[in-house]
């Protein structure tokens, strides 16, 4: 009964049935729905910023600086008289764009490196894991701050800095998954059946190990958005006067005693964003790996 083909067929059968079951259940997954609604609304806000923002986010109006919320400026104005609500809406463009984009390079490069290391093992694996250990010694913020400094301010530097350090997590996750999967009967069967390494990785290992990487990517987006607003707060992020949530908090901190909402509101928006993303992450982990949930 254990001919390679039989094993393969059995395993594929099993996989197909899990997949259809998950797809059927996605709309009954409250945390996924809630997350999609929240994040969808934020993305919509970012995309429609030119239409819905009542004012120009960078236009200074020193006559009307530090207005309290109310009137034409629903959330008041900052020290340069810029409309806080408009900056908040435009800020979504910057923070969400960088947050989503920054995940792409590490997701792809880390997953590929991790998959190769786990699949082939040997000296390649040893070297990769050694590099992973070295990178893990540098705390995320330390590395990002130093790299952004080294590479010079700007969006591209932020992408590169984040990519340079966060591929490590994907490599570790995917490698661990591959180590488990490659021992499964159907992989052994596929190899015995004469499939090439490339096809085995692409057809059988890839789809089975990526779910953990995708789930992690959701929390990684949160991490990246945190890094971007932190850089903004430290004055190392996107150059002013571009509206960005972290730098808005920095601007607001100066007036914390008189205009507390200036530092508070951008923070609340960040909290909502990360809540939405973690809900999507929770929902995805329900969908993609139900057997891991208690």
């Amino acid at each position, binding site marked *: 009964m254990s001919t390679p083909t039989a094993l393969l067929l059995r395993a594929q059968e099993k996989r197909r049935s899990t997949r259809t079951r998950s797809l059927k259940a996605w709309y009954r997954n409250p945390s996924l729905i809630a997350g999609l609604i929240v994040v969808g609304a934020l993305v919509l806000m970012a995309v429609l910023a030119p239409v819905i923002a009542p004012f120009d986010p960078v236009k200074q109006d020193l006559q009307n600086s530090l207005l309290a919320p109310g009137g034409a400026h629903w959330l008041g104005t900052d020290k340069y008289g810029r409309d806080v609500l408009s900056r908040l809406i435009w800020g979504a463009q910057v923070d969400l764009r960088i947050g989503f984009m920054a995940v792409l390079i590490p997701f792809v490069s880390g997953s590929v490196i991790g998959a190769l290391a786990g699949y082939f093992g040997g000296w390649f694996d040893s070297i990769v894991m050694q590099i992973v250990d070295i990178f893990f010694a*540098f705390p995320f913020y*330390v590395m990002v701050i130093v790299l952004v400094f080294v590479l010079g301010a700007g969006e591209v530097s932020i992408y590169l800095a984040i990519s340079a350090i966060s591929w490590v997590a994907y490599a570790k996750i995917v490698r661990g998954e591959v180590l488990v999967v490659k021992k499964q009967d159907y992989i052994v069967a596929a190899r015995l059946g004469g499939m090439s390494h490339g096809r085995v990785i692409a057809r059988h290992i890839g789809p089975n190990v990526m779910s953990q990487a995708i789930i992690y990517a959701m929390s990684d987006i949160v991490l990246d958005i945190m890094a971007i607003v932190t850089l903004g707060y430290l004055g190392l992020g996107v150059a002013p006067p571009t509206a960005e949530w972290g730098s808005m908090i920095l601007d607001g901190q100066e007036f914390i005693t008189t205009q507390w909402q200036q530092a508070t509101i951008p923070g609340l928006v960040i909290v909502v964003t990360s809540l939405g993303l973690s809900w999507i992450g929770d929902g995805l982990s329900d969908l993609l790996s139900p057997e891991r949930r208690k």
Partner: protein
Amino acid sequence: MLHRLSFIPGRLLRAVPVVLGVTIVVFLMVHLLPGDPAVAILGDKGTPQRIAALREQLGLNQPLWLQYFSFLGRLLHGDLGNSLVNQRPVSEVLFQAMPVTLALLLFALVMAMLISIPLAGIAATRPNGARDLGVRIFTLLGQGMPQFWVGIMLILLVSVNLRLFPVGGYGLADSDHLYYLFLPALTLAISMSPTIIRSLRASTIASLGSDYVATARSKGSGGSGLFIHHVLRNAAIPTISVIGVNLGYLVGGSIVIERVFAIPGLGSLMLTAIFARDFTTIQSVALFIALFVIVVGILTDVIYTLLDPRVNFSSKERA
């Protein structure tokens, strides 16, 4: 007991390539600067003479591998170079700032424990109950809030409105430090505790349902004695590694938090150096923090071994 710690020399040996790798990364940082590092560091202050002088100071005229080995040689002698801003040895400044950051981290760690253990315990006694839900909301919010923003909010609520703690600074006398570090440590603890709570909650639930807890109950054990002696002792073990891994995160966070509260630790040192383009200081702080994280990793393994008699690192490679 002692023979179980015999893994330490081997563990230290395995850290050697990592440490070397870290020094290489730190060394190469300067060469990531676009163009001539000396020009990049000096920026618009770069006169030809100053550039030449800096090239000499950084040893940039030598081949790369020679530069690295002289860098490593100086490191071994504890020479981290001189600050590019005031020419003082970086090691001096570093060792002034280090105790401040260590105190902050330790304080934050203790506070994170004080928050996490009771909350995880409450959540685990009735999973999916109302209190578990409350704890879950706390962990969700704790993970979703930017650290620096938590700090600012605490300043707003506790310092500005309630006037309980200072808005920032480190205090002058030794006795003041704890008072001044309270809010920054609390900030770090709030952002670190969700991870600890998640791990501890899961392991506490597992421990509460375990046979050995049933055995303890069958011996008439109950209440806090049961929780501390049987449940927590087992539940803490997986959490130790989680904390070890997250201490790195905590160090990263402390850099930002020191900025928020104007605390003269490694983070402030590093950020000041960044804005002053003081590259040797930046390098040294990054190197020091990475070495700290490596040491914490080793300590985590030691504590893990001491807590869990089943683990034997000397005979078994860790996954």
